[in-house]
């Protein structure tokens, strides 16, 4: 039993979903994603037991590419994030009726498959293949099942695709160069490379383009808000919940250890850029009129902070970044789901047209509130653990970074509470808002339960991630 089974499971899930017909598709997909989740928990168990669950075999002889999947704590954490969020995301879509839903759910599973592959791949080219592969399902999900004006959506989605692909291609060039140096794509061989500073700069830069666009770090973020807005909520969740983390994960796994000197040299600029994203995203979010766009910008702000954490090159920064990735993954899925719940009832996401929901649906309000609070990193939620650790790492580098990055806790509270106030509070809305259904409640409760539990007891995640991070740091500081 090893990690390939997980991939096969999801791929098989996608195929079975595709042939299961439109009516059953959602349930089949849910079943498979749950099985995958269970399976990944089992893998985690084995991993913690010290069992070797990696899988390495030759794939292509020339160029020498291996089908290498390796799991360390970091990968396992990200895989679990994916497998845990996928069923939630699928479940969250149960209230929607999609045309051609078999294709839709198959794509969702396919995307999950590709993202897990990205998190596990220990071979540069394999990693790249998965990385690109993940882009295709989301492209179609956003394009076909998205909402809003078709022309505008098309523009946004195509821009997203081309833009991210453009970034990735530069990463590919980077890999090609590394291959010409190392003669192998294996992670460990790439880690061993001795690159000159100049080479490191270019490699770092090539990777940075890919990741900065994917994450996104300003000023490469322009695709984000529109796509989040136009994509169906499931797509938005996949994008914001997991796919962004691919970029951040890659920073930790690939960019920093391969080009550590460049990372060290340009650290202030990188952190500065990331933090600028925090402030910028927060400020732009203040005046957003569309719920999903607001959340998109909030996401921009949060991932900015995570990226800043990554670039500190400290144990805390990397650890905190991982924590925050997980926390943000959950909370942003929850928040987008809340937006979707509102949309299902009111057919609008314009903040101006909302309001006065609290008196009609107090349960929903409470859950939404908790998510809002988690998003602003209230202590007791897992987001706080992440944000605290990241900010702390920033303060280790330079107190000013922590201070400016820390404005997120002020500005974040400002825009989130403003949004909450105008969507949920106020005089009772004239339209009827039905209380959340069972399926919806399950999604919320799982997310909230997760955030609160690990907010108070983050040790399991910490124990999982920390050794891996230390190993990577050892490579960075070699």
């Amino acid at each position, binding site marked *: 039993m090893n990690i390939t089974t997980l991939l096969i499971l999801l791929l098989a899930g996608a195929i079975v979903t595709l042939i299961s017909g439109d009516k059953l598709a959602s349930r089949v997909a849910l079943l498979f994603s749950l099985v995958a989740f269970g399976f990944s928990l089992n893998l985690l168990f084995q991993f913690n037991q010290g069992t070797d669950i990696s899988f390495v075999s030759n*794939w*292509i*002889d*020339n*160029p020498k590419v291996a089908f290498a999947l390796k799991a360390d704590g970091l990968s396992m954490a990200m895989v679990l994030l994916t497998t845990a969020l996928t069923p939630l995301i699928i479940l969250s879509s149960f209230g929607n009726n999609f045309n*051609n839903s078999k*294709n839709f759910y198959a794509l969702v599973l396919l995307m999950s498959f590709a993202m897990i592959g990205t998190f596990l791949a220990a071979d540069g*080219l394999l990693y*790249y*293949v998965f990385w*690109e*592969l993940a*882009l*295709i399902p989301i492209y*179609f999900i956003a*394009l*076909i099942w998205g909402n809003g004006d*078709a022309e505008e*959506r*098309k523009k946004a989605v*195509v821009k997203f*695709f*081309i833009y991210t*692909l*453009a970034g990735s*291609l*530069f990463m*590919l*060039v980077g*890999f*090609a*160069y590394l*291959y*010409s140096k190392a003669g192998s794509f294996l992670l460990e061989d790439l880690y061993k490379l001795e690159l000159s500073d100049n080479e490191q700069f270019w490699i770092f830069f090539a990777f940075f383009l890919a990741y900065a666009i994917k994450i996104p770090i300003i000023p490469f973020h322009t695709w984000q808000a529109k796509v989040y807005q136009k994509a169906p909520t499931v797509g938005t969740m996949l994008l914001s919940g997991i796919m962004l983390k691919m970029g951040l994960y890659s920073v930790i796994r690939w960019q920093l250890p391969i080009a550590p000197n460049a990372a060290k040299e340009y650290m202030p600029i990188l952190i500065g850029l990331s933090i600028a994203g925090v402030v910028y995203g927060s400020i732009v979010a203040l005046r957003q009129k569309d719920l999903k766009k607001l959340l998109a910008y909030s996401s921009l702000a949060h991932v900015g902070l995570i990226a800043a954490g990554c670039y500190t090159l400290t144990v805390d920064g990397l650890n905190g970044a991982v924590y925050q990735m997980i926390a943000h993954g959950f909370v942003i899925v929850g928040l987008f789901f809340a937006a979707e719940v509102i949309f299902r009832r009111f057919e609008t996401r314009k903040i101006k047209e909302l309001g006065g929901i609290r008196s009609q649906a107090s349960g929903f309000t409470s859950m939404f509130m908790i998510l809002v609070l988690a998003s602003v990193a209230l202590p007791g939620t897992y987001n706080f653990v992440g944000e605290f650790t990241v900010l702390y790492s920033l303060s280790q580098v330079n107190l000013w970074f922590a201070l400016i990055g820390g404005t997120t806790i002020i500005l974040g509270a400002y825009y989130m509470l403003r949004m909450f106030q105008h969507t949920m509070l106020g005089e009772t809305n004239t339209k009827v808002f039905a209380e959340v259904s069972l399926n919806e409640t399950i999604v919320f409760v799982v997310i909230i339960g997760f955030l609160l539990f690990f907010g108070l007891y983050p040790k399991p995640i910490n124990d999982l991630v920390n050794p891996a991070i230390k190993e990577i740091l050892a490579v960075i500081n070699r």
Partner: protein
Amino acid sequence: MQVLISIVSLGVFCLLAEIFNLRKLLVPITVIGLLAILGISLNLWSTDNSLDTQFSSMIATTKFSSAFSTLFILLTIFLIAMSDDFYKDHQAKFSDFIAIKLFLLTGAIAMVSFTNLAMFFLGIEVLSISVYILAASERLDVKSNEAGMKYFLLGSFASGLILFGICLVYGATGYFDMGEIYDLSQGVGLPVWYPIGVALIIIGMLFKIAAAPFHFWAPDVYEGSPTLTTATMSTLVKVAAIATLYKLVSGFSVVLSLKVENIIVVISILSMTIGNIMALRQKNVKRMLAFSGISHAGFMLMAFLNIATAANNLLYYTFAYALAGISAFAVIIMVTKNKDNENIDNFNGLGKANPLMAAVLTASLLSMAGIPIFSGFFAKFMLFSDTMKVGYIIVVIAGVINSIISIGYYFKLVLAMYTKDFDNNEYKPTNYYTYGVVAVLSIVINIVIGIYPSLVTQLLK
């Protein structure tokens, strides 16, 4: 040589079949025949008789030639399989078209397995003349006429150049035999005609693969020709030409001096860029793919910068490109059949009307765009990585930028299929069965070699 002879015999048989009224069975018989020939070719390959000294050392079967022959035969099988339906309205000339395709294949195989320039010249002329005929085969269609005329004029001009080049080479060395020429070229003291002749031959081949600035014919001819001919040109002919170019370049042991490399760099970048940028605003799918083909020619030229790995990379690239092209054209033929043009609008709503074909077309476009797991990705990647090895990062960067641009127009088609509704309901695929099978088969092969690139890259080992 057996392969060549059997194909010609098959061609002749096709012509004879007309007499025996075997039209209905013609395509199946030809396909079966070609499959058998494929078997022969593979069999020869495994026995590995490197030099076939019969027939006055005109032809040699090498791994290189076998590999490409296999690809050509495969492509021809697909093309002929599609002919059945495509030439339905030309019953009288049906067997001619099949036969011409087979002769075209003969030319192509001769081009990759020649050891004598005479054979090369014959091969390229057989191929070219077949294509002239096919291009102009829609006799009553002005566009087809124009396409045939343009291709013919420019093509025979190029033939003249090639001939002139051959003549100069002969003049300089006194031989037509590639082996002798190779040996002589290793020494010193060849007159200046030799390189000039080589340059002229290569320029002629650059014309055939439609590299900039010799590319102008391609869009017009592709657009005007009957779609199946376009498919043939953009897959079989282009692939044959690029393989021949490689064979020539290595056979003449062209010293890749800095100047030559510079020229390759410039032409490669120019072709990629012109092809991609021009494709952006095309409405006609065939024309768009013509420009895309120009850009692919640029990519393939990139391989010549690292001549050591060029054969392998070219083989893989041509496999990827041609198979994607076949499946794309299969869908295009299916969709634009009975339409008066091949505009992108015709694809509106295909995603709903015929999801499978839409998916196949999407996959083939993705492959051409170089997205994993399709083989187009590995093809490009190998090129990039090997070009990188010899230090031509600038070309790689240009290639990357061009890959990005190319998404712009490939996805125009995808968008049309998935986001637009079809204008009228008259869309009824007629006998899309063969097209479907061809399209699916070729894209499956494409994906399989994408997942296991070693299948192809091992061929030359």
